[in-house]
Structure formats: C-alpha cells, structure tokens
C-alpha cells in the first residue's frame, strides 16, 4: 500500500491552493472517488500525484512529495489535447507500443476498441473524432495496458448514457486489479466507490465515508433549493422563431451526417439536442453559428417579425471555454461586456474572488460558469449551450439548471447539447434526437 504524504501546494501568483494535513493511504486495488466543488483543486491533486509538478503545473510545494504514482496513466479532461497520432488505430496502440508488447500481443487487445464502439474506426483520422469518441479511444488505449494505477479526470463527461454504463462495468472489473482515482460528478459511479477523498472550499483534503459525502452534498442541495440564488435576468431583447427546413448537415455532400425535415423553436422554448457520440450534434450547432455551411436546405430566423442572420441574435457557449476569453482578467472580460458591479455578478455564479485572476487560470468548471454569463450580458435572444454542466458538481449543476429555466422564463430560446439526463428532463420543451441520420423532433409531455 502506497501513502500520500501530508503536503501543501499554493498556485503561482495566488494565495489559494490545496492542503493535505494528514497522510492518506493509497490501496493497491480499489476505486478512490475524488470529490469537491468545481475549482476546489481536484485536477491539481491528480497532477501532483502523477508528478507533473513543477514542469506542467506551477506553484509552491511544501511538506512531503505527493508524486506517488509517476507511472500511472492519466486521462485529462479535454481528450483532444491528449491525442498524439493521426489515426485511431495508431493512437490505440500508443501505450502498448511503449510497453514494448509484441504485435501479436497487441492484436489481442483490439477487442477493447470494439468494446468502446470504435471497431470500424481503426484507420479514421483522430481529428474527425467527436469529444465522446476521443474520450472512448483514450480510455480503450489506457485500459489495454492493464494499468496498476489509473488517474481519471471526468472520464465519462462526454459519453452517452449507454457508453457510460458500459464504462462503469469495465471500471468495476478493473478496480479488482488496479488502483483507480476517479473524478466524476455522475452519481452512477457511487456504487463502485471504495474510498472517498474530499477537497473542501478551502482546499483541505481529507478522507470521508462515502455516505457522509453524499449527506454533505444532499444538505447543500437542499439548502440551495430552499434558498435558491436568484437570477434576475432582463427579458429577451426580441421574440424570435427559428425554422429549420429540409436541412442537410455535414462536411461532405456525398456523405452527409444527417438531415432535418422540419424543426421550429420559439422564444421561451428549449430544445435539447441528443444523439450518439459523433452523430453530428456539434456540427449542427456550428452550422447554425455560421462556422459551417449547410449542405442544402434553409435556416430561417425571424426576430420581432424581421428575418435576420442567426448569428446576429445568437450566443454560442462552446465546449472549450478558453475560446471565449480575450482579456487579461475576469474583471476586464466582464467590464467589456458592460458589467458595472463585477463582484456581485461573480458571486451570483459562485465565482467569488476570481475578478483579478486570468480567466485561463480558472478551473474548467469555473470557466464554464463564467462563459454562461456572456449570453445575458450580450443581450442575445437565441442561446446555444454545448454541455453546460460538464465538469460541474451537483450544486453548480443545480444552479445552471435553474439559470437555464430562468432564461426560458425571460423569453430566451435555447438549444442545449447535454448527456446529463437530469438537466435534460428539467429544461427540455423539445428533444431533437439524431437517429439513423435524421433529426427527430419529440415534444415534451407537459405534466
């Protein structure tokens, strides 16, 4: 059994950090669930355990050395940044080749590629993979090596529910022979958990019984529901109607991704766009935003009775929050958008004390909450959100859900991609499901 010694780590240029006051034991096998609010320092702890300080994360470390698993395999949050090779097959064999397995041994692991739904993709360019597919590829590649220690940072964030269930089954088998440290906000992971490490809002790490952590989050959630933070949103600037008719979406006319016979969205409505990984969800949003041209068909948006280009009335909150930031500090970003009371605005989104930080230095979850402010401040009537609850703990996911509901009440129209069934059920007026290369529109049943 390995031991994580007591240590203290402070981020460069800030007073915040994480602190382990007493050593924690790392078992040879089992699943450790690393929990805490988004931005608490969970990814930082994984980086330290892997030994990526000081080359890749900057700050001051004192006390013991937390780099107890330098040979561990580590799946980070954004899968595309971890891909090295040009083709799926080459990427899959990356870790096995470095373990110096023989080609025939490597070949026996190809079944894992099939298990993760990538059997027919061996020669496909990795640049064409969706987030979910890229995540599956990296997971398959890592699991093929039978790792002894595996560090997983939100490994199921972009997986569809079926793939997620399959992954948890694989994890159940894997943890019998390996130690897995998992950051995951999905409750389906709970039955697999052997140990829970919790990082509180002050960055203090301690071991908690799983039941106690669940009680803690339940209490927080109940408190949040009893005393919800109010979102006072201005009404949508105009009433809009979005009509999509005979639309064909994709990159290549000979091989389109899918078609849309007819879909309509009006102010105050929310459409949840779903489909398997790689079915073309992000491609549709990119097409609406004007990043891609439709292969054929029409996109018609009317605002207060006048036909306008969709991008005039639209704000698109990307999966990659970094693409939204242009200024040195969070305060500057908000001031450019006309905010006068920066601290109060940030508090409403759980981003207290972030005003003077660079937006690029926030955690992935904090960045996402910051970008959700932009549509309100830009006064756009059509809001497109790509995985808005990705990387959020239960409390912040609850706040985001309520924010989306507030958007609807204020007359905004929304299109949301999400794999989160709770969010889906809470916000959807329509479900746009991509199946068999067609978009089906399913109206929500009003209860």
């Amino acid at each position, binding site marked *: 059994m390995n031991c994580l010694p007591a240590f203290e780590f402070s981020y460069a240029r800030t007073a915040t950090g994480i602190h382990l006051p007493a050593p924690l034991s790392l078992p040879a096998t089992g699943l450790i669930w690393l929990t805490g609010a988004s931005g608490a320092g969970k990814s930082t702890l994984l980086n330290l355990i*892997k030994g*990526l300080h000081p*080359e*890749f994360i900057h700050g001051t470390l004192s006390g013991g050395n937390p780099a107890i698993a330098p*040979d561990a*395999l*580590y*799946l*980070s949050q*954004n899968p*595309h*940044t*971890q*891909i*090295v*090779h*040009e*083709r799926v*097959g*080459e990427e899959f*064999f*990356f*870790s*096995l*080749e*470095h*373990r*110096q*397995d*023989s*080609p*025939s041994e*490597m*070949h026996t692991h190809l079944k894992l590629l099939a298990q993760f739904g990538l059997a027919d993709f061996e*020669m496909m360019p*990795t*640049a064409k993979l969706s987030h979910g597919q890229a995540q599956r590829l*990296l997971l398959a590649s*890592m699991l093929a*090596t039978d790792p002894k220690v595996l560090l997983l940072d939100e490994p199921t964030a972009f997986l569809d529910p079926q793939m997620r269930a399959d992954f948890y089954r694989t994890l159940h088998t894997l943890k019998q022979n390996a130690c897995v440290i998992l950051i995951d906000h999905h409750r389906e992971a709970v039955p697999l958990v052997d140990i829970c490490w919790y990082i509180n809002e002050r960055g203090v790490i301690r071991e908690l019984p799983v039941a106690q952590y669940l009680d803690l989050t339940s209490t927080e959630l109940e408190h949040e529901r009893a005393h919800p933070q109010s979102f006072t949103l201005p009404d949508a600037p105009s009433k809009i109607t979005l009509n999509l008719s005979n639309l064909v979406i994709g990159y290549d006319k000979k091989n389109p991704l899918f078609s849309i016979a007819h879909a309509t969205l009006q102010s105050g409505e929310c459409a949840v766009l779903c489909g398997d990984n790689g079915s073309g969800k992000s491609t549709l949003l990119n097409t609406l*935003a*004007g*990043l891609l041209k439709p292969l054929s068909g029409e996109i018609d948006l009317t605002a207060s009775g006048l036909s306008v280009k969709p*991008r005039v009335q*639209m*704000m*698109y909150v*990307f999966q*990659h929050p*970094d*693409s*939204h930031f*242009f*200024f040195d500090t969070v305060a500057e970003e908000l001031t*450019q*958008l006309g905010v006068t009371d920066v601290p109060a605005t940030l508090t409403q989104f759980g981003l207290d004390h972030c005003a003077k930080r660079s937006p*690029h230095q926030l955690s992935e979850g904090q960045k996402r909450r910051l970008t959700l402010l*932009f549509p309100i401040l*830009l006064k*756009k009537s059509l809001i497109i959100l790509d995985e808005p609850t990705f990387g959020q703990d239960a409390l912040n996911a609850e706040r985001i859900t309520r924010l989306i509901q507030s958007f609807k009440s204020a007359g905004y129209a929304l299109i949301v991609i999400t794999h989160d069934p709770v969010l889906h059920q809470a916000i959807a007026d329509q479900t746009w499901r991509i199946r068999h290369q067609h978009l089906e529109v399913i109206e929500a049943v009003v209860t």
Partner: protein
Amino acid sequence: MMDTARFNTLRLNTHSNAPIRSRPLHDAHVLGILMLFFIGVALPMAWHTVVVLALALAILARIQGMTWRSIVIRLGLALLLSWSIWLWNMVFVAERTPDTIHKANQILLRVTTMTWVALMSGKMLNLRDVVSFALQRGWLSMNIAYALQLGFGSIELMRAEIRRIILSATLRGLNWREKFLQWLPILIFALRHATRGAMSLRARGLHASSARKTFYYNYQSTRAQKRHAWVFLITLVILILMNEI
C-alpha cells in the same frame, strides 16, 4: 496477417500495414524526390528543364492521388503568389533591356514552379507517416518524433480554435481594436496546446528514459514502391539530360 519487413541491419516485426504502404510511391521517397527538385531548381538549368521537371512532379502528384483540378488550382495560386516578384524585377531596374526582361522571366518561372510544387507537396505526401517511418527506422528519436507528431496534429485543432475565436469575437460584438486582441487567445491556445501535448506524452506513459518501443503497423516501403521510386528518378535524370544536352 503477420508481416515481416527486413532491413539491412534491422528485422522488424509488425502486425499490419500502415496506409503509407498502399500508396503508389512511398511518402519518404516522394519527400526525397521533392528535396532533389528544390536543390535542382537552384542550379543553373535551362528554363525548359525546370518546366519539364515541374510537369513530371505534377504527374507524380496525380499518381499519388491528387485530382487534375486540384493541381491546376495550385498552379494558378502559384502564379498569383509569384507575380509580384516579376513585377518587382521589371519596375525596379535601372534600365529595362532584353536581358533584364529575360532574367525577370527566368526568376518568375523558377519561383512559380517552386511554389507550385511546394503547394502540391502537402497533398502528395503525408508528413506524419514519414515521421513514423523515420521513427521506426531509428532515424528520429522518440522525443523529436512525438514533438513533430503533436505539432502536425495541432494544425487541425488550431484551425478549429481560430474559427471558434473569430466567431466568439463576432458574437461578442468586439470593435476592430478589441478584435485585434484575437491574437491573445490564439497565442494562449498555442502555448497551452504545446504544454498539454508534452504533458499528455508523460500522462500516457512515455518517460524521458523511454528509448525503445515496438510497432503494430509497418511504415516501411514495399519492393514495388522502391521500384517505382527508382523508375521515377531515372526518368527525371533522362529528362534533365535530354533538355540540357
């Protein structure tokens, strides 16, 4: 299917062929031919030799899978890009004589053919496969090869990121001065991508001490590809001799 490639000093055991082995000419051979062409153009050869060599490479591009349309488009683009040099040589000359005009035409021709071939080269060969080939032969260290692989791979990601950043700036209604700040997120993306790329190699099990690895795919040339490369090279030599003598 088990495939075993034999080298002079190296016996390589792989399981499957990489796509590079199914192309008419091996990409590493094409890269070598292109390098010879660029050296050749710098030599004092007759203008018609340069033209013939460029045409031969256009045929090679067609053989490697480019369409004639794509080849012609690149020729037009090369002419467009090179035209200013001809204009420069015609305008900024003390006295315009038949000799200076001839020289300006010569320079235009060489620059155009070089640009044309350079523009075609991106489609004629896959550099990432050439890197894997060199790594498999042991001509590149893993540190260099993976840095190159990540660099080539980041081009597509960078393109997508730039599209997102431009859209984000437009949707945010940034003015022209603020739009100029777009370089900031692009630069940050490039820096972060470089860091994450290096980090991902460590994260996925590559160590500074890693010196050896096995290969699942075979990136080496086939006998047929070697034969095709020799035939093409001999043809080029014959064409040069026919034009120069």
